[in-house]
């Protein structure tokens, strides 16, 4: 096989792997957006939390800068278990964000813009808290954390890191499970009913508040898991690294079409691929390329790739 094809495959896999992270992220935004019609800006902070939780749960030690300097949990869980628990922790924090930054505003029927600000505030507080406790330094998860799995596999002549394949697999599984759950289960249908018409849903006996909390917990879980996976595949670049991912996830959400689950997935993959196509020597301009591409697509398709015709919330 020619090296050109190999290179292209490599680019493709890199793009799909980072795209999978963006997609997981955008799915979380989508869940909250579909029930409330607002964006949860604290999503990036939950991603940060998931990454740090994972790091601590596998037995990682805190560096010398934070208030917790030198602290280490007296356990060293396997990566998968740590990842699931980190997701659960982020889900719990998602519920707390709902209770503090969303529920009080909702009761007062506040403007959507206020939710953006209050959730951004909650996110910054969380990230700052992490910085206070763990310092601003970067952390990484040892490459051997996947146990007996090989570090990389050869696919069509391209070296694909196992963690990249895992990211893609997790995103694919989440997409399928989430779609089946939303379309097929009693609670999934109830969530969709709340998203379409909260008043009618309540008149059917559906507890709209509980459905909203469920959406926050699920989206927190997705953010936390994505954070843990990125910590493993790249590293934790510091407490604020989730915010950058959060912004890109937001772009992905808009690109895919607000409120569409497959759209969030497709948007993630497209942005990931667009970034991966940037030659290595220009990698500093990756974000510019990704957002430039986003801008162009939205000029041509203002509703995003798979956006619904009109989503009007009164």
């Amino acid at each position, binding site marked *: 096989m020619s090296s050109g094809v190999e290179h292209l495959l490599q680019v493709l896999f890199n793009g799909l792997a980072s795209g999978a992270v963006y997609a997981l992220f955008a799915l979380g935004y989508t869940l909250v957006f579909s029930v409330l019609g607002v964006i949860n800006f604290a999503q990036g902070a939950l991603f940060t939390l998931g990454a740090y939780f994972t790091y601590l749960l596998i037995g990682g030690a805190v560096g010398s800068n934070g208030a917790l300097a030198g602290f280490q949990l007296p356990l060293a869980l396997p990566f998968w278990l740590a990842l699931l628990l980190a997701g659960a922790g982020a889900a719990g924090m998602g519920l707390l964000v709902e209770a503090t930054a969303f529920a009080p505003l909702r009761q007062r029927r506040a403007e959507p813009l206020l939710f953006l600000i209050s959730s951004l505030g909650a996110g910054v507080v969380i990230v700052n808290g992490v910085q206070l406790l763990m310092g601003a330094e970067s952390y990484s998860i040892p490459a051997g954390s996947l146990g007996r799995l090989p570090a990389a596999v050869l696919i069509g002549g391209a070296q694909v890191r196992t963690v990249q394949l895992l990211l893609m697999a997790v995103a694919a599984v989440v997409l399928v499970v989430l779609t089946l759950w939303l379309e097929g289960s*009693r609670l999934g*249908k109830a969530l969709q*009913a709340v998203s379409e018409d909260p008043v*009618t849903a*309540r*008149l*059917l*006996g*559906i507890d709209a508040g509980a459905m909203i909390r469920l959406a926050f917990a699920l989206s927190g879980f997705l953010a936390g898991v994505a954070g843990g996976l990125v910590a493993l595949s790249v590293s934790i670049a510091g407490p604020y690294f989730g915010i950058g991912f959060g912004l890109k996830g937001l772009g992905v959400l808009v690109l895919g079409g607000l409120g569409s689950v497959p759209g969030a997935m497709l948007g993630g993959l497209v942005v990931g691929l667009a970034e991966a196509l940037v030659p290595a020597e220009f990698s500093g301009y990756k974000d510019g390329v990704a957002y430039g591409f986003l801008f162009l697509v939205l000029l041509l398709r203002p509703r995003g790739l798979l956006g619904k015709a009109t989503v009007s919330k009164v």
Partner: protein
Amino acid sequence: MTPAPPGPAPLLALRGLTIRYGAIEALSNLDLDIHSGELVALLGANGAGKSTALRAISRLVDAAAGTVEWKGRPLAALSTEATVRLGIGHCPEGRRVLARQSVATNLELGAFLRRDTKAIQTDLDWCYSLFPRLADRRRQLAGSLSGGEQQMLAIARSLMGRPEVLMLDEPSLGLAPRLVEDLMAVLRDLHSQGLTILLVEQNALAALAIADRGVVLEAGSVRLRGSATALLSDDHLRASYLGS
């Protein structure tokens, strides 16, 4: 004023119910008893406060004064969902079907609080026999149904919750006269099977033709009340609402 029908305590009792939207008093001092097995029509022009009364019973709006009691128990502290659980079914105005869901899913969600899978299936079959056109369209998205079909779906969905009292908000609105007739026939059948119904209508003639008694609201206050037969021969009602 006719005396309240004799018998046990009312299922639903509204006492001095007053609702304000900002400075506007939408409902003033409404007293109304609904007894088990009755079909009561709540009549009046657009904006008379009829829907507001239903919204207050379902706890979608708070009362500024007065109480709503269900079997002697005040509802004021409950959520909307909790009133549904008690057995208060509310079929809202304007055919609020879930347009992005199939007919079957809409009906299924009507039984959201129920766990008796077998009885739900029986009720589903019953709803489809009540409204055969829904059976033909069960896989279609509710948003693709005609106005009349959506109204049927909204009513069938309320029935799927097995309410003890069914409150219907303007079910005849926008329907062709023929469909109004069909609809009222279905409501009469449900009533004869023992279902308690509170029917909000602008179409006073159609509603009184099947009701036991009626209450006429004007600008938030009771203007008239009495048995359906008495109201149908009332001069004021005939002049204002029956167009004769």
